[in-house]
């Protein structure tokens, strides 16, 4: 049987090594990858805990009496001398169980020797329960062997610097070795016994279930052992308590022993086997058995163990209880040795034995006392693991520690008396001790970790248990230690056996038994009654406010042998109540958060700062140009190329200037770059080259000077769920400017929406949205008004009116830029023109200059105009050309005036019907851009 229980699988195992790959694109993926990889890489580094290959060599060494011991020797790193550690294993296990810890210690700079104890694994010999001339002497032989190793540090010739640690059976041998062999320098016994007699026969009551499991493991019939494959080692697993894990046979194996009764004793030494069989059969330990087991225990050499000891004991342990470690700590401290006590959550009953944490603590303990690192902290003198709530992420119980500067013992640093009430009760011991009450069940003890959450297996039978309850607690009480209570027991039977338990009773009546522990009490029979002090099991448990405590004294327990004869006991309280030990010096440790939980947010902040501080070039605000402060717009050398097109320019080397009071027409066919230019002007798009200055200020995204620009570009943009009025209101509020500066009434007049203003914008027609958007652009009467295709979707009267609006707006000294592809529109509205094509400036200037002058005259002619007459006109002096048009004549004058031409035409008998200047922008435009685009 492996007296260690299967390790609890913890979340957050070590991440496999992963090399972080940083992706360059997109930045987003990269940034998140950095975030995740940073965690993982650092996690792998901490999991490895320093590198270094561990060298292992296996050997059969000779123990005491020539017994062959199967050993493994672990070293790592250089050849310098280092302290050694002997690492023992649990009952029923072998050296293989501790290989992981051995490798870890070796990497940490120790020479580590593990061995299978005699009777286990491939080692020879018989199980002597850590007998002085058996297992303990074996350890001395191993120390001898270590002393001869060249890499082991020596305190004196033949005396290596060596520590011993181990769990359960291996922990006991560490204590015994320290008692018998002066060369041992430090020990760390874990979950082990101080006095085996007290552990198996507490208060003279036989702990039958655990004892049975304990002994059956070592006394498996040899037939089944022989059936196992030679050379293999049965793995002690989770099913070990059922006794199926048999030590495998090897050539070195001795014959099994047979006790006096003829019963097969497996690998047990005959004396031990006979003792067990005698006690198990009678159900009651005898004095000889007590003496024998005590002699085998560390308690026998109590006064001789003087080395620093880290004592680790389980709270969920009905086999080796906290009372065992308490006796151990007291004895060692009395010898003057440094002692630290650590109560882990689990134990032999199950639960989390916190191996990783304890392994680390053992390592630091040895660092301090073997390596002599005086600066190494060995942890608190007393630490208790407390169960918090459930971790809802994976369902595990959350553990956290509480630490104190001193170990107060089971009586506590302080004691508090709590009154119990309950009358005298008469209870029955059932014949045969059945059915038994249940406190803990070996193997189901994992549930005891849940006892703080309300899960409890405990069963008491009415009529077979006495019960005394306290009043509801006013405040919470945390009990750390063994409570005690005085009771009077009267019985006519020779003696009475009672099992004392202290329940935590919630207000709703649900009760839990802390750590699922019961303490047996044997009381000599006295018909008139006898007062005994009952020491309840040692626990660390918080009784919450409002809860009550219930003392239960049961006549039976599943784990123990109780008298089989039927009897009646009368039980009553003999004192005021129960004494509760507390340790106010215990302080809760900081919550055991993984390191990354603290590291991640600052790391993320650093990544975020990096993201914000790098990236595309920063905009360096250009200084304002005071010379241009009055110029509404000056564009110079503006170029923009959209992404993914290497050479296709949307706007290329555009330069022009707009003066106050102008109505500037931005003219060009679709795709000429008009809208792109306006977007750059609004700071929505970043130019590749060149600059835009509005009133002397360089335009960049969000430039404050844009507050002087009102724009309507590429259609309306409104919140469809809000009314037209709300849209304008909120837009103006969004600018943050004073309400009276909005000139909302004027803008609304231009929109002319009437009652529709109170409807949601989503109900508007295209034209209504258009008008509302122009009104929005005019809010606050901006100094520069930009209108992109403003007359789209308007009907003719509205178009005419819009023209008026623009002209009058510019008339007040403000400036308007209108983009359009409607030539007649621009011609009728604008004073100046900028003509663009394919992103380039074609021409800029006053409309008249671009369109041409009165030099071209169109003459409407009534009737047919013969070609000869046209030629005559063309031949006139002062006329450059004359061509026949559809219903007349087009003449380009060169020196002649229009009236003179008319006179000449009349003289030539041309039937002049009408004469007018030819100002067709379309022609000029087409000429300028070289034909329809």
């Amino acid at each position, binding site marked *: 049987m492996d007296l260690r229980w299967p390790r609890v699988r913890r979340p957050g195992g070590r991440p496999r090594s992963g090399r972080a790959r940083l992706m360059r694109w997109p930045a987003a993926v990269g940034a998140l990858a950095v975030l995740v990889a940073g965690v*993982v890489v650092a996690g792998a580094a901490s999991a490895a805990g320093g590198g270094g290959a561990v060298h292992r060599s296996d050997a059969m060494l000779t123990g005491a009496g020539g017994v062959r011991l199967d050993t493994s020797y672990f070293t790592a790193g250089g050849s310098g001398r280092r302290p050694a550690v002997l690492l023992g294993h649990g009952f029923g296990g072998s050296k293989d169980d501790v290989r992981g810890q051995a490798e870890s210690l070796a990497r940490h700079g120790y020479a580590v020797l593990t061995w299978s104890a005699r009777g286990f694994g491939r080692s020879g010999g018989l199980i002597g329960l850590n007998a002085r001339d058996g297992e303990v002497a074996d350890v001395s032989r191993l120390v001898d062997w270590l002393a001869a190793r060249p890499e082991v540090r020596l305190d004196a010739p033949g005396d290596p610097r060596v520590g011993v640690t181990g769990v359960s059976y291996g922990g006991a041998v560490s204590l015994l070795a320290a008692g018998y062999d002066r060369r041992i320098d430090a020990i760390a016994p874990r979950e082990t016994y101080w006095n085996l007699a007290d552990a198996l026969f507490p208060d003279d009551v036989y702990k039958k279930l655990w004892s049975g499991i304990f002994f059956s493991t070592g006394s498996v019939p040899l037939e089944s052992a022989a059936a196992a494959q030679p050379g293999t080692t049965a793995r002690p697993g989770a099913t070990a308590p059922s006794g199926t894990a048999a030590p495998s046979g090897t050539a070195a194996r001795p014959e099994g022993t047979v006790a006096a009764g003829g019963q097969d004793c497996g690998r047990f030494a005959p004396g031990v086997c006979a003792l067990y069989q005698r006690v198990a059969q009678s159900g009651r330990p005898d004095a000889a058995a007590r003496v024998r087991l005590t002699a085998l225990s560390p308690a026998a050499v109590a006064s001789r163990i003087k080395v620093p000891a880290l004592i680790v004991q389980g709270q969920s342990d009905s086999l080796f209880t906290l009372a065992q470690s308490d006796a151990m700590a007291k004895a060692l401290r009395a010898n003057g040795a440094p002692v630290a006590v650590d109560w882990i959550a689990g134990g032999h009953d199950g639960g989390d034995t916190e191996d990783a944490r304890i392994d680390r603590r053992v390592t630091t303990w040895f660092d301090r006392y073997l390596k002599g690192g005086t600066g190494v902290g060995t942890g608190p003198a007393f630490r208790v693991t407390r169960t918090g709530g459930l971790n809802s992420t994976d369902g595990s119980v959350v553990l956290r520690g509480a630490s104190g500067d001193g170990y107060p013992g089971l009586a506590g640093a302080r004691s508090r008396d709590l009154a119990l009430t309950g009358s005298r009760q008469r209870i029955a011991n059932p014949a045969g001790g059945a059915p038994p009450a249940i406190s803990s069940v070996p193997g189901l003890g994992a549930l005891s970790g849940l006892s703080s959450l309300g899960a409890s297996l405990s069963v008491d039978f009415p009529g077979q248990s006495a019960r005394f309850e306290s009043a509801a607690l006013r405040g919470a009480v945390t009990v750390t230690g063994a409570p005690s209570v005085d009771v009077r027991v009267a019985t006519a039977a020779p003696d009475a056996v009672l099992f004392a338990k202290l329940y935590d009773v919630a207000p709703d009546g649900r009760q839990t038994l802390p750590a699922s522990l019961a303490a047996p009490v044997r009381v000599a029979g006295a018909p008139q009654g006898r007062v005994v002090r009952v020491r309840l099991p040692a626990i660390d448990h918080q009784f919450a406010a409002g809860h009550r405590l219930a003392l239960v004294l049961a006549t039976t327990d599943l784990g123990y042998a109780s008298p089989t004869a039927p009897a009646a006991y009368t039980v009553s309280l003999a004192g005021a109540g129960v004494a509760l030990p507390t340790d106010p010096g215990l302080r809760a440790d900081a919550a055991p958060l993984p390191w990354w*939980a603290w590291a991640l947010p600052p790391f993320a902040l650093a990544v975020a700062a990096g993201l914000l501080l790098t990236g595309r070039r920063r905009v360096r605000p250009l200084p304002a140009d005071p010379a241009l402060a009055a110029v509404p717009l000056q564009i110079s050398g503006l170029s923009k190329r959209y992404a993914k097109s290497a050479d296709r320019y949307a706007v290329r080397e555009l330069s022009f200037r707009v003066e106050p009071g102008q109505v500037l027409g931005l003219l060009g066919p679709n795709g000429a770059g008009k809208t792109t230019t306006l977007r750059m002007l609004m700071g929505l798009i970043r130019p590749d080259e060149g600059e835009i200055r509005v009133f002397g200020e360089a335009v960049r995204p969000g430039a404050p000077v844009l507050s002087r620009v009102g724009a309507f570009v590429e259609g309306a943009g409104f919140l469809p769920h809000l009314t037209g009025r709300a849209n304008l209101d909120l837009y103006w509020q969004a600018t943050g400017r004073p309400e009276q500066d909005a000139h909302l009434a004027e803008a609304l007049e*231009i929109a002319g929406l009437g009652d529709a203003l109170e409807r949601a914008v989503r109900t508007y027609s295209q034209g209504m949205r258009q008008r509302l958007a122009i009104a929005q652009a005019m809010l606050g009467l901006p100094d520069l008004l930009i209108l992109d295709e403003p007359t789209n979707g308007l009907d003719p009267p509205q178009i005419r009116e819009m023209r008026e609006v623009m002209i009058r707006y510019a008339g007040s000294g403000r400036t308007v830029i209108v983009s359009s592809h409607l030539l007649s529109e621009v011609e009728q509205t604008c004073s100046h023109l900028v003509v663009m094509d394919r992103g380039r400036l074609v021409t800029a200037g006053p409309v008249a200059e671009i369109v041409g002058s009165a030099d071209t005259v169109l003459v409407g002619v009534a009737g047919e105009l013969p070609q000869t007459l046209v030629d005559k006109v063309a031949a006139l002096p002062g006329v450059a050309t004359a061509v026949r048009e559809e219903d007349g004549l087009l003449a380009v004058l060169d020196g002649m005036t229009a009236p003179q031409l008319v006179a000449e035409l009349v003289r030539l008998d041309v039937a002049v019907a009408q004469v007018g200047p030819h100002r067709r922008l379309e022609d000029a435009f087409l000429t300028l851009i070289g034909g329809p685009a």
Partner: protein
Amino acid sequence: MTASSAPAPVPAPPAAPAGAGGTAPGYRPGRTLRLRVEARRQLRRRRTMIVAGLLTALPFVLMAAFAIGGTPDGGGRNGPTLIDTATASGPNFAATCLFVSAGFVLVVPVALFCGDTVASEAGWASLRYLLAAPVPRARLLGVKLTVALGFSAAAIVLLPAVALAAGTVAYGWGDLELPTGGALPAASALPRLVVVVAYIFVGQLVTAALAFWLSTVTDAPLGAVGGAVGLTIVGNVLDAVTALGSWRDVLPAHWQFSWADAVQPTMEWTGMLQGTSVSVSYAVVLGALAFRGFRTKDIVS
């Protein structure tokens, strides 16, 4: 100026102020698009109303379900859940409503509020007018994110608040009965519920930041919302793959139910602290990505 009406007289604008300087009078970048203004712009939206309506209705739907199906009797003896204690008291009912909705129901409003912040403005074409107003880009993002988070928080608070009120009316005021056994007195249960709600909000920050970032990348609001919800689901799926082991610790979804640590006899903080750490870290980085991308983005919507 409707087509039927006569053209309105054109107002003659007053003369341009002489020497107006660099900016229009009264313009200050720090006063543009104040939180109140942005909240008013978003509040009347249909999606806001629908989310509020659904979250208000959900407790009553649950209540009707319990009325029809009968009071849960704790049939799940092996794994008691908050559902089993739903009708014990008002606080219990509020906790149950949180339990059933924290996984997905509350993800949607958060993704919705944060995912269409910028994208919907781009879709309406109103974004360019705000930016040309000009609202500085960082301020625009900051204000919009703040308001979106505010709406998200309101949604997350609304559900348990309605549930607490309705549950108290229907089932009475009482202790918070815990599924693991025991009960918390109402006086200490309410602060626990506040912690739960706060943690759920913090846990949703990843979804919020993801949606917000997507919102600055795309012009399609549904794309941003759907993308954020989709990636949140992918996170849940990955978290279900136990083979990932400790890699799952860096998944925000891994910690989404850590608030249950507050609904047990011993308050447990470690899970929530780790979840907060993961959530805030992702949110900070995603938020930085949003600001980094948007500050130089060409607005072509």
